[in-house]
């Protein structure tokens, strides 16, 4: 369970995460875990805040080779380096995938059915990247996604005490290695966010 603090001030979605609220006391996932349960490599973590009707996330990915080939939103991100955010309420899963390029694939799934990519989360996203996209010859360092998800899109009112089931995972293809995924929790529908 993560208790998500309410930000006392506005968050500018610019990929810089330099607002005081990100520094002073966001909810933190800590290091993501590999399927074995060990801290995952490459390193990933997330921080969360809420306020102004939005859920804010900072998604951090250490990455020696940043890869992102999809060119349009709702395009295929499953071969890209990407984060996958899943929020679930009342039998509905809201899935938002985001690549280091900033490309987003968002979908809704009702009662365990198929993902419907016509759904638009309205998420605002900015990225910061230290490295070169799609160039495996050099050593990249990291990429960061700053995201604001409208709580209304998740069927939430944006009130203290509201909860939503939450999972978060990241997949990556490191240099000279096979694709690996890591997660907060087991990467499926686990954990819970509580808006403080």
């Amino acid at each position, binding site marked *: 369970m993560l208790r998500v603090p309410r930000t006392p001030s506005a968050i500018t979605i610019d990929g810089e995460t330099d607002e005081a609220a990100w*520094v002073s006391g966001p909810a933190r996932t800590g290091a993501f*875990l590999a399927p074995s349960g*060990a801290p995952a*490599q490459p390193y990933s973590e997330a921080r969360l805040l809420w306020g102004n009707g939005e859920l804010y996330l900072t998604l*951090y990915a250490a990455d*020696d080779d940043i890869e992102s080939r999809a060119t349009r939103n709702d395009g295929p991100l499953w071969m890209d380096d990407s984060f996958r955010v899943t929020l679930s309420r009342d039998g509905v899963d809201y899935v938002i995938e985001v690549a280091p390029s900033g490309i987003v694939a968002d979908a809704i799934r009702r009662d365990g059915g198929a993902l419907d990519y016509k759904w638009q989360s309205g998420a605002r996203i900015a990225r910061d990247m230290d490295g070169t996209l799609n160039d495996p010859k050099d*050593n990249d360092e990291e990429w960061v996604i700053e995201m604001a998800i409208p709580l209304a899109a998740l069927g939430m009112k944006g009130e203290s005490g509201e909860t939503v089931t939450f999972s978060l995972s990241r997949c990556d293809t*490191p240099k000279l290695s096979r694709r690996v995924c890591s997660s907060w929790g087991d990467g499926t529908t686990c954990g819970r966010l509580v808006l403080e």
Partner: protein
Amino acid sequence: MRHSLLALTVLFGALGCARDGLTDDGGTDASLLDGGSCATCVTGSDCSDGTQCVQLGVNSYCMAVCASDGSCASSEASCIAATTFDGQSTQVCVPSTSCEPPDDDAGGPVDSGVPYDAGGQVTGTVGADGGTLSRLYFGVVGDTRPANYEDLAGYPTAIVTKIFQDIEAFSPKPAFVLATGDYQFAASGSTSTASKQLALYVTARQQYSGIQFPAMGNHECTGSTTSNCGTGNTNGITANYTAFMNQLLTPIGKTLPYYVINVNAVDSSWTSKFVFIAANAWDSTQSSWLSTAMAQKTTYTFVVRHEPPDASPAGPGQAPSEAIIAGFPYTLEIVGHSHTYGHYTTPYPREVIIGNGGAPLTSSSKNYGFALFSQRTDGAIVADMIDYMTLKADSYFHFVVAPTGTLTK
């Protein structure tokens, strides 16, 4: 850490979604460890004295707080960095035994390291201005910054502390330690936490009692790899730069971010120089200094710079310094910047990356640790990477280089 990782494997592998959230009372057969337990919690009031409610994976557990020296009262637990239920940074003891019976998928990573032979004792001393030794034997630690900007709570204190404890405990103990830069991730202005982050680093590195020589990283300027600090340069004197100079270099009597240290044989049979380049404080003065420093004839020359030769974007002094050192003989170029480690025979056979000192790891298979460089009786330098938890050497990294920089066996 391997032990604690196994424990976490069991912990999280067994919990799963069915036991998610508020009603879970996981770890009912928990063994008590250091006064903590595997019992789940929601707030701090759910935990007894001496324990804190910390987030581990998808759940929160009451875990014993580590002692100030980073150790746990029980040898069956490991001290790791964690976040409390209300977002505070702490350190807790995580059990090496399982909280629940292991399942079939609970296997941890397989250690591929090999025992490290540090060789015979080293006599002599190295101080702030260099010194003399019976043989060269030194450690390298690189890149210790947190993942996030201005993040004091996320500073990798536990990892850095453990690394320097390891180095201190090695037998024989390395005579000195080099650092390849990036000790902070801080704002460059007046509200910066740079000084506080470096204070965390200094405290952690004090676990090692020998002299330490730090190189300047891009995060000691503004954080941007292209930034250039110092009087008269584009970014001038930033909070990061000031903290680096005041807290890491002033204590060893250095007034500039670039300098050279000489370490020679007690019996005068060999000489060495360690040339620290500040590619993010590059100017014509440093350029001239570097040419002069490199011209000094020594048996061994180790160039220490934060950015590798192929870093992209590049540090301002990266290519210019690379051009200068290429005109002189040298043994190795020790760099960081990439949060990993490696030695690649092409295209830079004399380059060795040591950037796994606590900053978020970028590769999929390399752990935190430190490098050791040890002079053999035939004069060759043996390089190894030591895993900070197992203290074993990575056999894939191991290499030997002659004083000239030629790879040998």
